[in-house]
């Protein structure tokens, strides 16, 4: 059988893999003489990949026997992943503890992870989907445990691995069962049709979907498989915690969105149970993320719990998107998911970037390191305040627009309970973030001076980018909303 491959469609991912290999080889040949070369190489690779991506055109195309596709939403998610990767590469340059370990490999692995996430977003075939999810996971395990002489990083990597490997094994069983009952189909839309036509007992499909949901819940870090999130974020290198909290989750959300579109046609019998499962997960994520987050004394852990709560909001958008379909750009649920993801990228990466800088300056991530920070590092304190208020959903930041859209979609689609939980938890979450502000602005600074180390320029560039996105799209959200609607308009074409 001859398979036609449209290499242009695959070119962004292949560029990323090629760039990673070039970085590995350059490091092998030149060793320490080229130790500053990896960052420019990686940025060039990302720029070329983004350029190739944007030159693909907005229309739906697929290749490699209909297993790999691009459309507007896929391009949107990939751009988010690449932008997140770019900001994280800038952050990694300013993360001090990492400088004792080989950095070129680190950068190369981040590019490989970005390419794997890109494949996840674009896969239309069960096999490609599984392989790309595992590719992304395995690279992430290595990155989380990268500082192997650091006890916390090793523990973070191992915990991430144990959670990830076991839940992805459960997910594989779900895939195998779906493969079995759909009659050996691996193409996802065809599989969704086969599931409806083959007249399979709903209980069987619910079990299979439940198993798949375990794997995806781990990937996006939602309840019930959220246990790894706080530990891994706290122990992993800070840029990697940021990477896992944004790029990795965005790819997981894209997969979840595709799965509900393809495998759950509107006439599917398990729409009701599946909505209930997702609603439970969304509510539990929001409640657990905010309430337990309040108790945290470590900033990275606090951001981890806030990430769990934010995933709950994204799940609301997904639930609305799968229940109320209008087949036009006014598909509020899916539009709100895209807007939320884009806003979350900027505000969460910004918060991580500032926490990273303060960690470098004060040498720790505990809350007491932030006492009286406003009088000693006023700029950093102010920036952190902006990003934390954005995460809490205060206007005029993009966090407000994102939360507003999700809640409006939920109310419009009559998911009142979800909307009420969402509003209540965002009120509570304000307290969670305000606690940090209180410590920074009200508490007395400790006696000893902070050694003022210079903050590298790449970190400032990363923060500037995040600040721009957070404020610009908060004040003037029109283009973002239009772009999200534009991307959703075609999401049903196959």
């Amino acid at each position: 059988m001859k398979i036609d491959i449209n290499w242009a469609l695959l070119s962004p991912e292949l560029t990323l893999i090629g760039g990673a290999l070039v970085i590995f080889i350059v490091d092998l040949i030149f060793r320490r003489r080229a130790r500053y070369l990896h960052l420019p190489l990686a940025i060039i690779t990302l720029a070329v990949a983004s350029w190739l991506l944007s030159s693909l055109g907005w229309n739906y195309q697929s290749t490699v026997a209909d297993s790999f596709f691009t459309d507007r939403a896929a391009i949107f998610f990939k751009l988010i992943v690449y932008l997140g990767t770019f900001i994280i590469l800038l952050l990694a340059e300013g993360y001090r503890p990492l400088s004792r370990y080989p950095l070129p490999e680190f950068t190369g692995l981040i590019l490989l992870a970005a390419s794997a996430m890109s494949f996840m977003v674009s896969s239309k075939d069960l096999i490609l989907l599984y392989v790309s999810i595992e590719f992304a996971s395995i690279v992430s395990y290595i990155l989380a445990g990268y500082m192997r002489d650091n006890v916390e990083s090793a523990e973070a990597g191992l915990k991430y691995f144990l959670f990830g490997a076991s839940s992805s094994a459960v997910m594989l069983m779900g895939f195998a069962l779906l493969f079995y009952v759909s009659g050996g189909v691996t193409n996802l839309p065809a599989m969704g049709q086969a599931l409806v036509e083959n007249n399979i007992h709903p209980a069987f499909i619910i079990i299979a979907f439940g198993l798949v949901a375990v794997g995806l819940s781990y990937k996006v870090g939602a309840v019930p498989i959220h246990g790894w999130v706080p530990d891994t974020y706290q122990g992993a290198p800070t840029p990697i915690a940021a990477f896992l909290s944004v790029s990795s989750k965005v790819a997981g959300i894209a997969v979840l969105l595709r799965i509900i579109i393809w495998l759950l046609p509107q006439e599917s019998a398990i729409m009701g149970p599946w909505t209930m499962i997702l609603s439970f997960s969304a509510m539990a994520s929001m409640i657990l993320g905010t309430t337990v987050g309040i108790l945290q004394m470590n900033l990275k852990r606090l951001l981890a719990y806030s990430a769990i709560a934010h995933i709950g909001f994204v799940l609301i958008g997904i639930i609305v998107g799968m229940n109320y379909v209008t087949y036009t750009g006014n598909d509020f649920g899916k539009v709100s998911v895209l807007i939320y993801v884009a806003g979350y990228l900027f505000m969460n990466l910004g918060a991580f970037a500032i926490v990273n800088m303060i960690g470098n300056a004060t040498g720790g991530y505990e809350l007491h390191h932030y006492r009286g920070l406003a009088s000693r590092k006023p700029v950093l304190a102010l920036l952190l305040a902006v990003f934390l208020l954005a995460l809490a959903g205060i206007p005029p930041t993009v966090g407000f627009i994102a939360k507003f859209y999700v809640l409006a979609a939920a109310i419009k689609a009559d998911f009142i309970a979800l909307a009420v939980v969402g509003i209540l938890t965002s009120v509570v979450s304000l307290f969670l973030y305000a606690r940090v502000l209180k410590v920074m602005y009200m508490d007395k600074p400790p006696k000893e001076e902070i050694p003022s180390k210079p903050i590298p320029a790449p970190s400032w560039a990363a923060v500037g980018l995040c600040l721009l996105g957070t404020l610009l799209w908060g004040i003037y959200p029109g283009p973002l909303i239009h772009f999200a609607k534009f991307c959703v308009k075609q999401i049903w074409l196959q």
Partner: protein
Amino acid sequence: MSSPTEFLDTLLNITPTHYLVVAFALFAIGLAGVLIRRNAILILMGIELMLNSSNIVLLAAGRSFGLQEQSAGVFVVFVITIAAAEAIVGLALILACYRKWRDVSADRFNLMKW
């Protein structure tokens, strides 16, 4: 009591359902191992069992849909490869933790909680 030949016939008349039963049993054993065992290496072995039980389901599916259906075999080859890659990374992480704790018990990895 049937004759030995008949018994052998029923024994050899294996349907996909038989494969599924074996696969689910293996999956349950693997999952129980992951949930109950405290030793990180034994947890890894449980994970491998779960992956292999999925392989059996895939192969049973491929067999029942006819031999010209190749996607099941392709899937299984990918799963085996990924399982190997995962085991390598997992063992490396376990080794890194062992160097610090001199122990591979998952209960000991409790620097960070709550």
